[in-house]
């Protein structure tokens, strides 16, 4: 019924010894000898027994007797040979290794081969290929690096430009590994878990910074400079992967690091934190906030703070009076068309920023500096108050020149009598309208409200009433009129960079809410939330930190 095979019985047999290194060579033929091989694997057997010589008293020769024990078959039938050797000789065998011993042998061979191959690799010319996981980036290759390696570490391969180890073999590697900083036994390798900062390694100090020596390391309040390799990972192929936001978040997302930076920053003069500005660029400097810029930031759209200038509720300090709402309103027309942003704000040559505004380019088309309603061709110059005053004081001469130009234009000779008569006539009219020359001068400089200027049409009044229409005109200690300097910043955000060119698909007003802005003091920059409305994962994706900010040399704006 059962298909199972019966198990043989092994009653009274010897113990099985699977741990023995050697097996009797006859065992594989199923007849292992009683004695078995020696512990070193030699066959020691000659026969099945050692015959015993029995001598009866008085007997000379005696009889050889077989001594094979009963457990092994008892005395053999033929008995010993006459010379006393065993009658059942066992041919010597070649003991075999047990399976377990063969496994040990295989292990030994594998270990030897492994060690030999590795030693060969380390000692030979493949050492570099052996340990180099991948090519270094292109900038770190080439003859210059080979030379650097030679000079710096007497190394014949470029690895020596940065690494100390390739100079010697395994011994040096072990030595360097044991003395590495951070080393295998130091807790500093896990320091990250506590502070979030990978400190600079000796390799950074010995090699990276030795070349990249003019790199500033971020803000002065950084408590401990990070290892270069935190952000710049080498041996990743010819192109080194760019640092990413996670690198920034390592510190800016870590409360302990930010707290430490805040404490350190509080003892450093604020100007040390000023961002560098390219000469000639007008920059608006936002005061450094209390505690420094140590908000916790893990992502732009998550918890990047509002831009400092807005967050601190600052006002545009400019003295020029400008009302965006009116200019973009229905009342203002240029050549019959309403104004738009681009009428004044045009990109500069790079496209990144807006070009600087000027009176001549942006204001003059509407705001002519006419002061005589009858002769609109006459204008005061835009610029120095002294020039305006000089112009007004030479008014008779101006009228004469005007008449001369008119006559010349009409093809007549500019007769002196005609020009003088024209000047007298107009001077008289002007005196009648404005009173004295001083009064005219005062009116031109100080009038801000067009209604105060007599004789002007409503249209004209809207365009120019006097300098004070746009400027802040004050009386100096010398009792002279003086126009307060105008300050229109080229850059508002110095710690980050913005690129208008990348945002041309958006209208200006998407970000700059200027239609409601009636005051110069309004700073019409978009807030961080406006930016983050698009720059979030579900929008166009967040900007990388590095798109706006730089880590090392904070390049001039």
């Amino acid at each position, binding site marked *: 019924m059962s298909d199972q095979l019966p198990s043989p019985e092994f009653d009274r047999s010897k113990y099985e010894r699977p741990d023995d290194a050697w097996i009797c060579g006859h065992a*594989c033929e199923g007849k292992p000898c009683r004695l078995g091989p020696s512990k070193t694997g030699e066959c020691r057997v000659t026969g099945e027994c050692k015959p015993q010589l029995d001598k009866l008293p008085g007997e000379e020769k005696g009889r050889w007797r077989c001594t094979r024990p009963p457990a092994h078959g008892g005395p053999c039938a033929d008995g010993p040979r006459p010379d006393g050797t065993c009658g059942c000789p066992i041919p010597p065998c070649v003991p075999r290794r047990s399976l377990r011993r063969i*496994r040990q042998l295989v292990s030994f061979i594998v270990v030897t081969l492994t060690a030999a191959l590795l030693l060969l690799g380390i000692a030979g010319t493949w050492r570099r290929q*052996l340990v180099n996981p991948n090519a270094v980036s292109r900038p770190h290759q080439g003859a210059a690096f080979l030379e650097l390696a030679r000079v710096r570490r007497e190394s014949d391969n470029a690895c020596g430009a940065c690494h100390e180890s390739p100079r010697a073999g395994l011994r040096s590697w072990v030595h*360097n590994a044991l003395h590495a900083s951070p080393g295998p036994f130091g807790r500093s390798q896990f320091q990250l*878990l506590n502070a979030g900062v990978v400190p600079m*390694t000796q390799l950074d100090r010995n090699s990276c910074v030795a070349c990249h020596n003019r790199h500033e390391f971020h803000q002065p309040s950084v408590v401990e400079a990070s290892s270069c390799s935190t952000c710049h990972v080498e041996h990743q192929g010819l192109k080194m992967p760019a640092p990413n936001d996670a690198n920034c978040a390592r510190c800016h997302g870590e409360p302990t690091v930010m707290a430490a930076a805040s404490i350190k920053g509080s003892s450093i003069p604020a100007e040390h934190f000023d961002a560098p500005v390219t000469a000639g660029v007008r920059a608006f400097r936002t005061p450094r906030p209390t505690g420094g810029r140590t908000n916790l930031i893990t992502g732009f759209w998550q918890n990047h703070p509002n831009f400092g200038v807005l967050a601190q509720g600052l006002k545009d300090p400019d003295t020029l009076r400008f009302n965006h709402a009116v200019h973009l309103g229905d009342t203002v027309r240029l050549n019959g068309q309403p104004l738009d942003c681009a009428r004044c704000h045009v990109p500069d040559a790079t496209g990144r920023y807006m070009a600087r505004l000027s009176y001549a380019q942006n204001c003059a088309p509407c705001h002519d500096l006419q002061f005589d309603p009858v002769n609109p061709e006459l204008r005061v110059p835009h610029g120095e108050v002294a020039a305006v005053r000089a112009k007004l004081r030479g008014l008779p001469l101006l009228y004469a020149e005007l008449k001369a130009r008119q006559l010349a234009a009409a093809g007549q000779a500019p007769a002196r009598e005609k020009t003088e008569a024209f000047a007298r006539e107009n001077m008289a009219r002007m005196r009648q309208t404005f009173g004295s020359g001083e009064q005219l001068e005062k009116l031109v400089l100080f009038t801000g409200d067009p209604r105060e200027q007599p004789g002007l049409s409503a249209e004209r009044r809207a365009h120019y009433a006097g300098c004070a229409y746009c400027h802040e005109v004050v009386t100096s200690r010398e009792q002279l009129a003086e126009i307060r300097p105008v300050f229109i910043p080229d850059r508002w955000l110095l710690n980050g960079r913005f690129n208008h060119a990348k945002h041309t698909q958006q209208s200006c007003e998407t970000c700059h809410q200027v239609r409601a802005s009636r005051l110069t003091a309004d700073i019409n920059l978009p807030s961080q939330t406006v930016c983050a409305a698009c720059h979030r994962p579900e929008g166009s994706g967040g900007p990388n930190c590095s798109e706006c900010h730089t880590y090392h040399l904070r390049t001039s704006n």
Partner: protein
Amino acid sequence: MGYFAKRRVIGVLLLLMASVAVVWGQLQLAPVMRQVGFLTGWALLAACVFLALYNLRKRLPFLPLGSSRTWLQLHAYVGYLSFVLFLAHTGWRWPVGWFDDVLALLFLSVALSGVFGLFWSRLIPLRLTARGGDVPYERIPIVRRQLADRAKSLALESVTATKTTTIVDFYSQHLVGFLGTSANFWRHLVESRAVLTRLQARIDDLNRFLNADQRRALAELAEIARQKDGLDYQHALQLSLRLWLFIHIPLTYSLVIFTVLHVVVVFSFSAGVPPF
């Protein structure tokens, strides 16, 4: 729930929890901590050291170092976990550079041979027991010799008893080689009984030409052949249970050497040495 089921459920649950912890930790730490590689590396090394210690435990049966079954359970589960740690350590991608390639290949070979070994160790005993005829591996040649001797004397006796050489011819043609050595390793591994079936068919065929005495002798020879086939089965399967260790253990030693060098290279090249 039986002890084994309970043990497996607890083991798998713990393994899953540990694996999730490793994966989660790696994913959380990796963006903010490049040195997460040190962490997973040391953890992997610790796991490997623990796995290798099982060998030491086996060499010290005389010390109360915990039972081998507990060790094997831990060995298996820590082995699985080490695979997760390995993935975490390599950053979920195949490593670059031939040294690391070989290291990874060695690890995978050891790990996969271990998984295979465990599977095999659970499967083969069931097959061995179902077939019966259990013999300690070292005694197989002895039993084989006994069977061969019995078959030989049966065949020779048949000549004197029946005055014909039919059986002895059959014996020398089909049985001598078969009984002389362990055969059909691969066939037995895949549970093929083709050889025995063919032999049986030949015996059945021969039976037609024999008288009652010869048939009795042939039936005995057939039984010997069946037992020899069972012995071969024992030999093949028991050998296979030993052979997988020929990969698992030697490569482990190789892996240890590579790992040590890997650690040396990592620290020697990644950090630099302060000036003296």
